[in-house]
């Protein structure tokens, strides 16, 4: 199971790969759409990559609630436990 730090770092790499955002800009308080220029379709790609990397399921209905990097990290942490 990945730690919180590992999830942040993994997400940063995924966002960098998909949206071309420098990994160091991917901080917990950053909004995917407003701060990181990850639009709704890129968000789906981020989510699918995160599902694969962390072995969790993030259904479509939950994706819209993941506004910030912190939201996504918390979701993945909880999903790992479940």
């Amino acid at each position, binding site marked *: 199971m990945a730690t919180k730090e590992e999830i942040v770092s993994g997400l940063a790499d995924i966002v960098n790969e998909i949206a071309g955002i420098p990994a160091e800009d991917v901080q917990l308080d950053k909004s995917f759409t407003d701060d990181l220029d990850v*639009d*709704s379709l890129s968000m*789906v790609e981020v989510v*699918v990559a995160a599902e694969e990397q962390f072995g969790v399921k993030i259904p479509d209905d939950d*994706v819209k609630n993941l506004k910030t990097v912190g939201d996504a990290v918390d979701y993945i942490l909880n999903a790992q436990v479940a």
Partner: protein
Amino acid sequence: MSAKIRPSKGAPYARILGVGGYRPTRVVPNEVILEHIDSSDEWIRSRSGIASRHWAGPEETVAEMSLAAGGKAIADAGIDPSEIDGVIVATVSHFKQTPAVATEIAHRIGAGMPAAFDISAGCAGFAYGLTLAKSMVVDGTASKVLVIGVERLSDLTDKEDRSTAFLFGDGAGAVVVGPSQEPAIGPTVWGSEGDKSETIKQTVAWDVYRDADPGQVRFPAITQEGQAVFRWAVFEMAKVAQEALDAAGITAEELDVFIPHQANMRIIDSMVKTLKLPDHVAVARDVETTGNTSAASIPLAMERLLATGQAKSGDTALVIGFGAGLVYAATVVTLP
């Protein structure tokens, strides 16, 4: 005692003999779409890759566009219209359910009295029709089948919905499927996922209008759940596309052309990435200037790739249609 029934006898294999397309004369750039929605050219292009689309005028009916595309496909096949003994029309935007528009097209195109029927399989309609046509030729129930994908999606577009107003276009694409001595249409991988039927749909069923006061219920439009459809299209359909390649015994290296349903450039780009297609594979990106024309998109894109020299006759192409249902169908073909 059951008597012995003589089996039908068809061609050993089937192939696409010719392709044709019709695009309505009116070109609608994003600026026109923006008259009705609060958005921008940059936003539309970044989310969909669409710069313009064609919208049909009053004279460019489903039947007229089909006749134009079908006539070109028959000419491209180098056959006489009278040789056509099967007509399949895939559409979701012909508003008269009975009779099937395929019969009118068959008659007016000069095909005599062929088997003729419409099918409803959303954006997979063309690939479904192609599969049926192949089966008819191989079974021997027909020898030259005209398959048409045709849509007037501008009639089913909510021009004030900023998430779909820019997406859809009109047009017709057609192929003639006939006998072949070599396999030239591979096994079709197809199916449906009815549990996702709400993700792409017509907003209002026709019978609602029977009981509603005139003008009370808005004319239906096609809506979709963008993120759910995107995830399904990119990741699930990439698997189906790979299965079709595997079923045909074709590797990505051997592939020349990729013609996915022209839903959205972002879906096309992500599918190419997910499938890890080599750089030499020509990818249809007709959506940029044609929009999403549902059942018409694959033959329209096929015709354009051949006309512009990006693909050539004899090339090996992977085609995949996917859409409302949800339904999907993928196969590998030799281009005419």
